[in-house]
């Protein structure tokens, strides 16, 4: 199927698919991202980690163009996303895939119809070809036999896998995963982890994962970013970070309750609190 081959780039590993330069974003008076630089190399799995609410999902939204940065450039495949007009942005989005935390399957369509959706919307392929593609995508995620089920009948893990099949339906150049492991049982986590890595390598994709499941993500990522307070606290390969001298990074990676990020919320002296009226 040659018409999808064009999305597979044959670039050197040092090429960057996404380059966020000096990006700042604020929501009202709250600064979420403060002049950060993130580079996503092609063909690799990059993970953005950090404590909750530090702007990881915001970064994804900036890449898809759903949000506009207050400053800085967001280059995706050479194009500056915030400056794109509606039509070019739409075209770019067709080459991106995003997997949402909740799967976000369309509840009134069957599994088959969900995966077929992007094909029906964006291509003029005949029904027989669509059927074949859907079956292949479902096979890749191991759910070929579930195609007639409705989303309400699927378990959490299964609906995420269907969402993944839907995301790869149009053979995108990159896939973004928004908290894919959160709240899943260990088996499902294992399944999804394997799928992410396998698909990335076999389809020549670039994968961006946003997660704070350190153990899982370290195993499959080529590169890690840890964000806190709107800035990049650390970046590098999982190996590099494990050997990091920063106490904060060590606290985060090892899940220690106390360290540079304090356990106690700032309060006055305990004895004073108990004994004053």
């Amino acid at each position, binding site marked *: 199927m040659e018409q999808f081959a064009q999305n597979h780039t044959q670039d050197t590993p040092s090429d960057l698919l996404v380059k966020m330069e000096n990006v700042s974003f604020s929501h009202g008076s709250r600064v979420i991202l403060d002049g950060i630089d993130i580079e996503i190399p092609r063909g690799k799995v990059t993970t953005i980690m950090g404590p909750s609410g530090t702007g990881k999902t915001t970064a994804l939204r900036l890449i*898809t163009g759903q949000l506009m940065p207050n400053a800085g450039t967001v280059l995706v495949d050479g194009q500056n996303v915030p400056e794109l007009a509606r039509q070019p942005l739409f075209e770019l*989005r*067709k080459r991106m895939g*995003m997997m949402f935390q*909740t799967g976000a399957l*369309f509840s009134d369509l069957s599994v088959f119809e969900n995966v077929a*959706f*992007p094909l029906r*919307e964006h291509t003029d392929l005949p029904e027989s070809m669509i059927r074949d593609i859907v079956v292949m995508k479902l096979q890749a995620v191991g759910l070929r036999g579930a195609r007639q089920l409705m989303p309400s009948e699927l378990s959490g893990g299964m609906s995420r896998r269907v969402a993944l099949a839907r995301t790869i339906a149009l053979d995108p150049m990159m896939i973004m995963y928004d908290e894919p492991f959160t709240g899943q049982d260990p088996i499902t986590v294992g399944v999804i982890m394997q799928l992410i890595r396998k698909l990335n390598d076999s389809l020549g994709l670039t994968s961006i994962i946003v997660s704070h499941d350190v153990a899982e993500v370290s195993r499959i990522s080529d590169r890690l970013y840890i964000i806190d307070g709107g800035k990049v606290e650390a970046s590098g390969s999982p190996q590099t970070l494990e050997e990091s001298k920063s106490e904060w990074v060590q606290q985060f990676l090892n899940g220690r309750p106390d360290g540079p990020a304090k356990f106690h919320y700032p309060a006055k002296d305990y004895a004073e609190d108990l004994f004053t009226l």
Partner: protein
Amino acid sequence: MNGFLSAISGLGRKVISSIERMGRGQIFLFHTIMSTGVIFKEFSLLVKQMHSVGVLSIQIIAVSGLTVGMVLSLQGYNTLVDFGAEQSLGQMVALSLVREMGPVLTALLFAGRAGSALTAEIGLMKVTEQLPAMEIMAVDPYRKIIAPRFYAGLISMPLLAAIFSAIGVLGGYLVGVELLGVDSGAFWSQMQSKVGFYEDIVNGVIKSIVFGLVVTWIAVYEGHDAAPTTEGVSRATTRTVVNSAFAVLGLDFILTALMFGGA
């Protein structure tokens, strides 16, 4: 003094945010109307929505129409009989239904049943990230989700109002003629002589079209504008019903004054 000042500024904030919302609502309506083309290209979307919005509302509309017609007849008889004018029952029931009760009550019931369902459905799609997913897949939610529902409501409302009025008249007949002994011939002939097609029926239909537009607009907008949390959706559904009620009753006054005021 401070409390007073903060109350005033709080009021100012509310007014500004209301105006903001209305502005967003207008822009929303604009986008919806711009997506009208999809109705012709993907007619099945409209059909599906007309089923969920219109067909499923028939039950409550029909039952309400019947009971309202019957009650009108009962109450009307009690009052008219004092003037010896009970033979005019037919026209009283018909005029009340066609001019006011039909369009207004249908609109309010519609807002409560179909309107709130629309809001909840769209709001839920926001919560489960189906709307952003669609956007990221470069599919326009206005075309696939919003416009079909909007037009389904717009078309269904006048039909439902007509059903309400028609069944109401039949209900009035049942009570008036069968139960209370009003003469059948008088019931229909008085009605026919006093209810004008253009003055009453057409005006009633115009009212129900206007109500349909406003109620569906509010319902779909509130769903689209809801905060993507369960609490946000529940508040949005409440707002749909409340705002629809205000809008319908307010517009009813204006339309009635315009249409029937002169006479």
